[in-house]
């Protein structure tokens, strides 16, 4: 009996991110997982970078000047996007977990992601024009 191809496998973690054949909830799962990993990475980088505050005004303010560069702002926008997507998808997860709106989880996902996109656009506009 060939046990290779169809079995679950711990190292199949790339299959988490495979959208083929998935439906709405599956995409939500993928999105949530990717944004979770991205935000975790950001969290620790952010904490380290803030250490510069303890080095005094010169070190920190020169870093602040760096944050005005477009590439940096774009990076920050990615973080904002990830936060909105993860957070609003999280709202759907919390609601369905406590039994609210379970039959409407698909519609909820679309509505919340639309909200997220609107929020990201608004934030992006403000971040790039100030």
């Amino acid at each position, binding site marked *: *009996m*060939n*046990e290779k*191809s*169809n*079995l*679950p*496998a*711990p190292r*199949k*973690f790339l*299959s*988490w991110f495979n959208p*083929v*054949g*998935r*439906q*709405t*909830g*599956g995409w*939500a*799962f993928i999105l*949530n*997982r990717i944004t979770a990993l991205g935000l975790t990475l950001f969290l620790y980088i952010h904490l380290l970078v803030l250490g510069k505050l303890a080095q005094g005004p010169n070190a920190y303010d020169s870093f602040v000047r760096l944050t005005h560069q477009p590439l940096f702002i774009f990076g920050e926008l990615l973080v904002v996007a990830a936060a909105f997507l993860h957070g609003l998808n999280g709202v*759907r*997860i919390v609601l*369905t*977990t*406590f*039994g609210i709106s*379970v*039959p409407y*989880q*698909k519609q909820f996902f679309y509505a919340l992601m639309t909200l997220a996109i609107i929020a990201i656009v608004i934030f992006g506009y403000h971040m790039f024009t100030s």
Partner: protein
Amino acid sequence: MSDNKWNITLKIHRQKEDQPPYFQEFHLEVDPDEYVLDAVERVWAFMDRTLCFRHACHHSTCGACGMRVNNVEKLTCITPIRAVTQDGGVIKVEPLRNFPVVSDLVVDMSNLYARMEMVGAKAVLPVTQAEIERPPATWPADAEQYLRLTDCIECGLCISACPSAATSPSYLGPAVLAAAQTVGLTAETLPIVDSEDGLWRCHSAFECTAVCPSAVDPARRIMNLRQQVVRQRLSSLLKKS
């Protein structure tokens, strides 16, 4: 049944013993209102008798004919060809995921059946406990005596679709957890579902409910069971103090 015939290609997953798997194409003339299972059966009957596939009732009651059709889990006996392709199109047919392949389209479901038994899955339930859609506002006094077959036909589509089941064979899976919810939280089921391979490995992907052909709605049942377990654990914790 309509008169027009379609020419389609079935791209079927083949795998024998320890040989590497491959796809084999078969060209057929079919009636588009027939079902994918009919096409597979015709391939077996007239083109290749070595093709292995599972089927029995042909009316979505036995749960034997679950396969992945164009990457989506389906019960092939109720999947019209019209729904998955067009004239001249290709239908890709693969076995379910997350079960070991025995041969071609047949997978070994013994793990699922064993777990359903372990959790005490019921074949029938009194109609008052069956959580049917649109129950009456009040059940008549003698309603308990009327029994109803439980919805789950143990077809395994949910386990094939579940991303958590894709990473470990020990995850109980949506079907088993849903069955446990119909049994209810008892001294036997509680440690099974509140375990490291139980309820907490669900990540709300809802793929199970999306592919279930029998309206079991495993995702809702898993959520419901979680609430019951949390309530149970919290109240026992508070009682101790």
